[in-house]
């Protein structure tokens, strides 16, 4: 038995009757049709014929509606234009019903949108976490960052520098603008000893009022008391990061527990609130410890930090008193800075204090030295995913255009029955917005999956801010979905409803698609898609090439047979003499291992070093008060230059004869030698900050990359380990073969020499380079993913529009074939039609890419933004995929049977 109810409902759907009326009518009608059908069957009619006869009775559904326009109906517009709410409910019901009828269409549209919206959600969440909403504290708008800056003449250097603890204390006591002014250091590596094993952790030294300044409430326990930062080493207490408590300590009772950190027993007194990982909201510590604990905790590096005005390690964070402006705070601090400069001329003269909104300071630390990089990368990524979404939108708009062509008759009938154009547009927009929202809902899921993927790519599982899908993100996605729905729905809705009623009703169904303008519009959308995906592909190809180049660059040290790992005997409580003996023993034993050519120690890991300022060069005239010599300082053991593969240009290496009792020596690099001693550096003298004696330069080494891959040359000073004790060093191993094979034997040697010594950060030279190029590699991955996504979407769009065109022109193609056109020429015709659009898109994309090339150039190593090979690769990939997308419908066209096609007319 046929489902009459279904048939009736489908016929009634376009009439948009009020729901109750429609349900009743449908039931009556289907009952009627069923009765009629049974009767016909029992009269001996064939089933198929009976169905035809019965279904034909429904042909004129318009009559069912016509009655609504009768004058005796309740006036005031009747059910057709009730309240906004009724209309909306009806539109939604109608939209759902229409969507149920074309599940494939809906799947495709929602899937496309979900990809586009999901990509945007992922990127926005990351950007949101990094930039837009970084600090989970109350009233963050009144928080400011206080830092020191060098003054050169009248201009003040833009780079904020840390403050010393005594300076910070003076600022805190003397200012009239902050309700609290607190200080914190960057997260520092510490060693946690537990049940005979060691783990690494990060700890931040903070002033006692740190949490008060941020106005936080502990998740458990308490924060620091003011006396806990009042006397050096007196109060070994710590506050734990909530995530650390949960992850490392399983959330079990922690208050009052004693942790052995760097050999010191610390009592946990509180847990910070969840989500708070410090002021720098990207990477945070596991523990916060009062600044007064600096000396026992970091005996060699921060011994006098609490009292030494020359050791600047603290960043200031202040809470402005209500009603006070940034300008007021700046002038107050400038006054104090000037006073300090007079009181401590040796250290604080030429120093200013800067007060900036906390957000600015966080971005500066998050982005490292070049904070604009993070903005640039964020903006670029948002632009890229925006492009992907645009492509998705135009694809969906194209689909809707094609579909609205098929629905033109339905629309015309509805207009004939008195539906206003505005009403129809609203109805169609309801549909597209509904699609947009569905896409958005799925997009959030896709976005979350994307986030997990991105965070999976982060190096190390350290203390990063977790991805948060918060209200801002949901709001963003919701807005995006609504905007998307309107964007791709608006044009088709207006186009579809603009056709004259009479014109359409007269038209034969077969000739519907002949409107020239609609095809032009979809073509324009398609050209845009091709252009956008081309730009993304070029960008991906350029960055890929640039990375290829980058790996071939010479960083000034060898990478192929190098392994490095960090060893920290100082943190195991070794004395100076023990530490020296340990370094010597490990170096000699490791160097003696078979397969190892040489081994040495260095305080720096390649691409992780930061320059130090305040180096004194004998006989060099400062150009101004604040002019300072900055250089990378690397403490290295004998045979370092051979092991790391850094060539010596001049002079000699360090030897076992360079001892703490012999004359202090140093080796500088070419850059430093050229800058300060153009006539020759050997025999000249320098002094490092905090040292009393001058060091004589005994050698000049080649420049290398110290901080970032492919950086411009930086000055560098090497000093011998024997003359500069260090509690943490990095073991460098030069191997004969694959360095990975030698890591374990070397680790065993270290472990044998010092079972309690922390070892970490094992990596090969290649991994160091990978790390240095991490950002670029992430960019490549993202661009490639998004580029291919865009290309895929554009190809589907191309395929769709051509398939539609072929379907529309079946008859024309049939005639051509009947008149003797060869199948090959039909194939050429269709492919030519598609490829014309592709070429137009390529041309536009090409011009745009060249214009945008300058933006790109800062991300590229040794590749021009108009690199022909990258362009060619992008053209080739895009053309190949586009050709396939054209070929399929074209082949379909050649299979048109002229007889069938003509008979259809």
């Amino acid at each position, binding site marked *: 038995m046929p489902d009459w109810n279904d048939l009736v409902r489908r016929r009634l759907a376009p009439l948009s009757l009020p729901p109750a009326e429609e349900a*009743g009518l449908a039931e009556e009608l289907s*009952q009627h049709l069923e009765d009629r059908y049974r009767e016909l069957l029992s009269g001996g009619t064939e089933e198929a014929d009976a169905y035809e006869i019965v279904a034909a009775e429904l042909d004129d559904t318009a009559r069912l509606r016509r009655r609504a326009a009768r004058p005796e109906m309740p006036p005031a517009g009747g059910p057709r234009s009730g309240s906004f709410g009724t209309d909306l409910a009806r539109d939604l019901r109608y939209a759902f019903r229409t969507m149920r009828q074309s599940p494939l269409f809906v799947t495709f549209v929602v899937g496309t949108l979900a990809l586009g919206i999901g990509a945007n959600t992922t990127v926005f969440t990351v950007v949101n976490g990094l930039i837009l909403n970084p600090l989970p504290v109350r009233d963050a708008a009144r928080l400011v960052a206080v830092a020191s800056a060098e003054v050169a003449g009248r201009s003040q250097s833009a780079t904020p520098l840390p403050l010393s603890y005594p300076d910070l204390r003076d600022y805190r006591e003397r200012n009239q603008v902050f309700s609290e002014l607190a200080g914190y250091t960057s997260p520092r590596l510490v060693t946690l000893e537990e049940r005979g094993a060691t783990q690494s952790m990060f700890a931040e030294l903070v002033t006692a009022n740190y949490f008060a300044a941020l106005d936080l409430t502990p998740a458990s326990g308490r924060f620091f008391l003011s006396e806990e930062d009042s006397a050096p080493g007196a109060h070994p207490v710590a506050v734990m990061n909530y995530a650390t408590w949960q992850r490392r300590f399983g959330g079990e009772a922690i208050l009052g527990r004693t942790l052995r950190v760097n050999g010191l027993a610390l009592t946990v007194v509180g847990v910070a609130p969840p989500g708070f990982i410090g002021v720098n909201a990207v990477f945070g510590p596991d523990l916060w410890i009062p600044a007064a604990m600096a000396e026992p905790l970091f005996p060699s590096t921060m011994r006098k930090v609490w009292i030494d005005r020359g050791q600047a390690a603290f960043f200031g964070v202040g809470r402005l008193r209500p009603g006070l402006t940034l300008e007021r705070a700046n002038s107050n601090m400038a006054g104090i800075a000037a006073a300090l400069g007079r009181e401590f001329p040796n250290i604080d003269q030429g120093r200013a204090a800067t007060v900036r909104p906390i957000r600015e300071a966080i971005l500066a630390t998050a982005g490292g030295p070049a904070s604009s990089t993070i903005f640039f990368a964020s903006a670029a990524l948002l632009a890229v995913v925006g492009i992907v979404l645009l492509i998705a939108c135009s694809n969906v708009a194209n689909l809707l255009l094609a579909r609205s062509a098929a629905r033109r008759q339905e629309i015309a009938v509805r207009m004939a029955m008195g539906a206003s154009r505005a009403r129809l547009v609203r109805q169609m927009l309801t549909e597209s917005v509904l699609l947009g929202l569905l896409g958005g809902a799925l997009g959030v899921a896709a976005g979350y999956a994307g986030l997990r993927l991105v965070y999976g790519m982060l190096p190390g599982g350290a203390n990063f801010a977790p991805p948060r899908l918060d209200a801002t993100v949901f709001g963003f996605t919701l807005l995006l979905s609504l905007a998307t729905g309107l964007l791709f729905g608006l044009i088709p809705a207006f186009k579809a409803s603009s056709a004259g009623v009479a014109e359409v009703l007269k038209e034969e169904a077969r000739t519907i698609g002949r409107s020239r303008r609609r095809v032009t519009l979809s073509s324009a959308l398609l050209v845009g898609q091709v252009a956008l995906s081309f730009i993304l592909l070029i960008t991906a190809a350029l960055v890929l090439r640039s990375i290829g180049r980058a790996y071939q660059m010479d960083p000034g040290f060898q990478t192929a047979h190098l392994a490095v790992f960090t060893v920290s005997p100082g943190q195991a409580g070794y004395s100076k003499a023990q530490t020296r003996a340990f370094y010597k023993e490990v170096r000699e034993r490791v160097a003696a291992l078979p397969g190892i050519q040489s081994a040495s120690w260095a305080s720096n890991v390649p691409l992780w070093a930061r320059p130090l300022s305040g180096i004194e060069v004998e006989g060099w005239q400062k150009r101004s008060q604040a002019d300072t010599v900055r250089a990378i300082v690397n403490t290295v053991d004998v045979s370092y230059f051979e092991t790391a593969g850094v060539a010596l240009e001049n002079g000699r290496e360090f030897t076992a004869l360079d001892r703490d009792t012999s004359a202090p020596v140093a080796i500088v690099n070419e850059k430093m030698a050229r800058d300060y001693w153009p006539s020759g550096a050997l025999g000249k003298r320098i002094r490092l900050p905090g040292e009393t004696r001058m060091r004589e330069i005994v050698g000049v080494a080649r420049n290398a990359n110290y901080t970032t891959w492919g950086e411009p040359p930086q000055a560098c000073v090497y000093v011998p380990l024997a003359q500069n004790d260090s509690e943490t060093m990095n073991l460098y191993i030069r191997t004969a073969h694959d360095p990975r094979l030698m890591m374990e034997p070397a680790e065993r040697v270290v472990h044998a020499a010092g079972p309690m010594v922390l070892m970490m950060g094992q990596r090969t030279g290649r991994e160091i380079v990978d790390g240095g190029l991490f950002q670029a590699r992430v960019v490549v991955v993202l661009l490639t993913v998004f580029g291919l996504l865009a290309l895929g979407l554009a190809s589907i769009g191309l395929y769709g529009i051509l398939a539609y065109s072929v379907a529309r022109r079946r008859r024309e193609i049939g005639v051509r074939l009947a008149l003797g056109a060869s199948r090959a020429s039909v194939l050429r015709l269709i492919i030519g039609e598609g490829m014309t659009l592709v070429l137009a898109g390529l041309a536009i994309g090409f011009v745009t890419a060249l214009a945008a090339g300058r933006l790109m150039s800062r991300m590229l190593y040794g590749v021009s933004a108009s690199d022909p090979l990258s362009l060619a690769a992008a053209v080739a990939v895009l053309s190949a995929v586009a050709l396939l997308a054209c070929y399929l419908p074209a082949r379909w066209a050649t299979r048109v049977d002229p007889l069938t096609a003509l008979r259809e007319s």
Partner: protein
Amino acid sequence: MEVPDAEWKKGSAELLVLSLLEDQPRHGYDISKAIEMRSGGALKFHVTSLYPLLHRLEEQQWIEGRWVEKAGQRRRRYYRLTAQGRKVLRSQQRSWLNFVAAIGRITGLENA
């Protein structure tokens, strides 16, 4: 007998439906069957005309529809005449008779 044209049918449709409901409640299909049978197939209602007509009569409160359930069957909507409908029917019957009589007198078809 010639098939009455559309205008005739339209004018008389209300009268036909009301007349059929005078002695018993009927459902839609029953009404359409009865019209077809009693007219010997000369009069036939399209479903798309019949139901809107029924609903309109109902809205004018000349007839009244009610869902009736019967065991083993789908429920049907039965229509019956209201008191007001009965009055309308009477008046329509009178005017129809007058109309037919008038036509007869003019055309001389009466009792032909």
